[in-house]
């Protein structure tokens, strides 16, 4: 119980710091009035978070480490690659368009990584995650090719290692 408390205090402290930096970056003014208003809002939000955490009981950790950054850069590469594919499809004859919809198994992916995985799929053009349940993720794609790429499990593997080591 005490370890849980320690963890949530660290969690709250990180959020307080992040929000304070966010305020300063967005405002850019250092007058007493604006700084005190900023401090007030940070305290308000952190108090809310504290209350929510005690109801929720589940403390999500910010995965803001080097590994997450590497995943982001890899994802940006994927986004550019697949947008070029979609661009080709847009400017070519649309009769070649063969959209598919498949259910991908996700029961081997850790719970936290599923959100990341589904959002990454939607973020890359050409694939769209439509529905998710305990075992399957429905994905709609413009080409069968992109489904094959997802089914090879590269993205799923990257997303799940991220959470395993981050938590």
């Amino acid at each position, binding site marked *: 119980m005490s370890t849980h408390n320690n963890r949530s205090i660290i969690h709250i402290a990180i959020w307080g710091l992040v929000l304070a930096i966010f305020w300063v970056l967005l405002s850019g003014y250092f007058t007493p009035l604006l700084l005190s208003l900023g401090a007030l809002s940070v305290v308000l939000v952190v108090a809310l978070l504290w209350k929510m955490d005690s109801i929720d009981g589940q403390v999500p950790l910010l995965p803001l480490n080097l590994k997450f950054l590497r995943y982001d850069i890899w994802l940006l590469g994927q986004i550019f690659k697949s*947008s070029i594919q*979609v661009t080709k499809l*847009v400017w070519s004859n649309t009769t070649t368009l063969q959209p598919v919809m498949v259910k991908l198994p996700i029961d081997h992916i850790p719970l936290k990584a599923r959100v990341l995985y589904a959002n990454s799929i939607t*973020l890359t*053009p050409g694939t769209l995650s439509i529905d998710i349940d305990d075992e399957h993720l429905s994905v*709609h794609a413009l080409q069968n090719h992109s489904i094959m790429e997802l089914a090879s499990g590269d993205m799923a593997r990257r997303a799940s290692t991220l959470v395993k080591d981050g938590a």
Partner: protein
Amino acid sequence: MILDTLSAILLICGAFFSVTGAVGLFKFPDFFTRVHAASVTDSVVTLLIVAGLMLRTNFDLVTVKLFIMAVFLLLTGPTASHALAKSARHGGLLTLPESKASDEQSKERGS
């Protein structure tokens, strides 16, 4: 000078992908495929245009604000696309292959 050229290239690329997304939105045959076309505008165009604009600032707070803007757009874009697609799916909209199949079924039943 180099930064200006680089920024111009990024902005032109962004504009091109933006037009592509718009053309795709009109050209593609059904709802789900159109969402794909719109998601090009969502992701790549955001990145290219914001990156192009970031290079035109004096690298101060405005740069940071542009960066934060890109992060939020990239977070909300897929969420909106997913919400649209999910509610369409739950509302009973069929994808292109599925609606073709059900058309053929109803034809067979008719004949």
